[in-house]
């Protein structure tokens, strides 16, 4: 019965989300929603490795940048269509994720965030200085939007308008949620949570922790690359800063403030923070200062973010323990 109710609620929610561009005609707010969609994908990708496998990957923003640059360059230099460049860009990102995950995931505890931070800085410098390929500090400009697709009966769908990009990004958000949801509710997901709890214990139980961590890392970089590829085509320009660890911080903010280790948490964070950004626009550069303070206070008082806070409040009302 409960499951059925849940499905009805979800369907209703999805219907509302589908209708948003028909109700809100303001281009500017639609743009924010498209960006939120891209942030949702990237936040979910970070949450997979951080929230489930318990590994703080500080290079996730760099993988976002790799996906963005790979997709952008495949379109611009090789003349590939977006529909081919995007999957190739994601695969390329995942390949880099796999190759770099093998050495970095051998480390534990303090060493993993440090190793990934160094990895992120190294890759950032390659992107920022490899002028011949990435355009260096100038960045990449004039990246195309996805090619129109012709559908039988429905006619051609073009992706020039913000509304069409909204639906495009929404499609990939749904794909990401479904894949990650399936993954974490599978046995492999349970193994990841065991690793998060206590890696040595998980290993003693016969879990090949290294293999599971590498697979999780590779999948998580694949989705970071997906978010990057969508970003490249939607924004039509890229700067080396997009691959900087500042991007990793933004993802971390979305995940932590929304609620780490849940599916809904990073989604809430990635919708809530860009909207908050608009409200805090008058603060200029101080906005990120406020975010930093919010991040520290969240971890201090609400370590499981907004979702954790709501669960705690509900548990108090019903007299339960929350988690």
């Amino acid at each position, binding site marked *: 019965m409960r499951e059925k109710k849940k499905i009805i609620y979800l369907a209703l929610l999805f219907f509302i989300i589908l209708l948003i561009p028909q109700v809100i005609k303001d281009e500017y707010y639609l743009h924010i929603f498209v960006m939120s969609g891209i942030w949702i994908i990237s936040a979910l990708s970070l949450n997979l490795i*951080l929230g489930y496998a*318990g590994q*703080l990957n*500080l290079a996730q923003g760099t993988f976002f940048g790799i996906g963005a640059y790979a997709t952008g360059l495949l379109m611009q230099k090789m003349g590939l269509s977006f529909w081919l460049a995007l999957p190739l860009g994601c695969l390329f990102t995942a390949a880099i994720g796999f190759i*770099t995950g*093998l*050495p*970095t995931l*051998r*480390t*534990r*505890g*303090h*060493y993993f*965030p*440090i*190793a990934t*931070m*160094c*990895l992120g*800085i*190294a*890759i950032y*410098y*390659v992107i920022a*200085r*490899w002028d011949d390929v990435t355009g260096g500090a100038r960045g990449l400009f004039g990246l195309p939007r996805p090619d129109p697709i012709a559908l039988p009966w429905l006619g051609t769908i073009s992706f020039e308008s913000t509304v069409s990009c909204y639906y495009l990004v929404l499609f990939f958000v749904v794909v990401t949620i479904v894949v990650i949801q399936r993954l974490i509710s599978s046995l492999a997901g349970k193994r990841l949570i065991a690793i998060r709890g206590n890696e*040595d214990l998980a290993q003693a139980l016969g879990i090949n922790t290294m293999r599971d961590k590498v697979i999780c890392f590779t999948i998580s970089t694949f989705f970071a690359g997906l978010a990057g590829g969508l970003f490249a085509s939607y924004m039509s320009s890229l700067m080396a800063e997009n691959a900087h*660890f500042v991007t990793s*911080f933004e993802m*971390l*903010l979305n995940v*932590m403030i929304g609620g780490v280790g849940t599916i809904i948490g990073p989604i809430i964070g990635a919708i809530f923070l860009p909207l908050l950004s608009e409200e805090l626009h008058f603060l*200029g*550069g*101080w*906005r*990120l*200062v406020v*975010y*930093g*303070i919010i*991040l*520290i206070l969240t*971890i*201090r008082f609400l*370590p499981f973010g907004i979702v954790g806070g709501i669960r705690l409040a509900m548990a108090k009302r019903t007299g339960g323990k929350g988690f």
Partner: protein
Amino acid sequence: MGILLQTLINGIMLGSVYAMVALGLTLIYGILNVPNFAHGTLYMIGAYIAYFAIVSFGAPYWLGLIISMILLFVIGILLERIVFRPFYDKPLINSFIVAVGLILVLENTALSLWGPEFRQFAGPSDKVIEVMGVMITAQRLIVIITAAVLIWLVHLFIKKTRLGAAIEATSQNPDGALLMGINISQMRGITFGIGTALAAVAAALVGPILLIYPAMGHTVIGMAFVIIIIGGMGSFFGAVLGGYLIGILETFVTSYITNFFTEAIIFGLLVLLLAVRPTGLFGKPH
């Protein structure tokens, strides 16, 4: 020969900076068990304080350096007290993220207050000394000598004073230190202050040579982590030796191989090192 020697001097100069920053980082790590990702950002704040003391308030160079050192000592103590202390009994990952949050706060404060433009201030002397066909600016000599003296003083402080011994005891075994009547939270605060003060001195020393801007700490903190991983996290001599080694290595790579991918090469080497030895060169296996 001239170029080789010149490169070596520049390498030692850069190594002096790295050694001081890495020493601060390793001291903080040793006692708090937290890799302070915001250490490079504090280095940047130190540079700005020296800049304003010297350029805006007309303080003499050495006074500016000391002001920056003292202020960062106080800031370090406050940060430990307010930001890091509530997380000691929480999962490790929380303090990592708090340190990342601190970067956001400090760096964007600097960016909002002082803008992104590059700044520089003058050193006490712009003389150039010629030794065996090598031109050394006085400032480079000042960096090398001051760093060496300061590192030696920190060493003496830890080994020869009661306070230093208490700090070392806390880093070796906090519970044991507590039983011996050492106030370990006070030791943590003082160590954090010393660590950030060292970063401030390093920044004030290179202010006349390198450029000051809000993101100046990024590469330095990355290098400092490379150094303390190579030298063994928490090890005093590892950090100092590693600092000089990486400084010299970086300068040689820049001069003889490529000046575009220096960081990529060094960070790449670190990732490879960790692949072979996941706990660093001198770290114990898990």
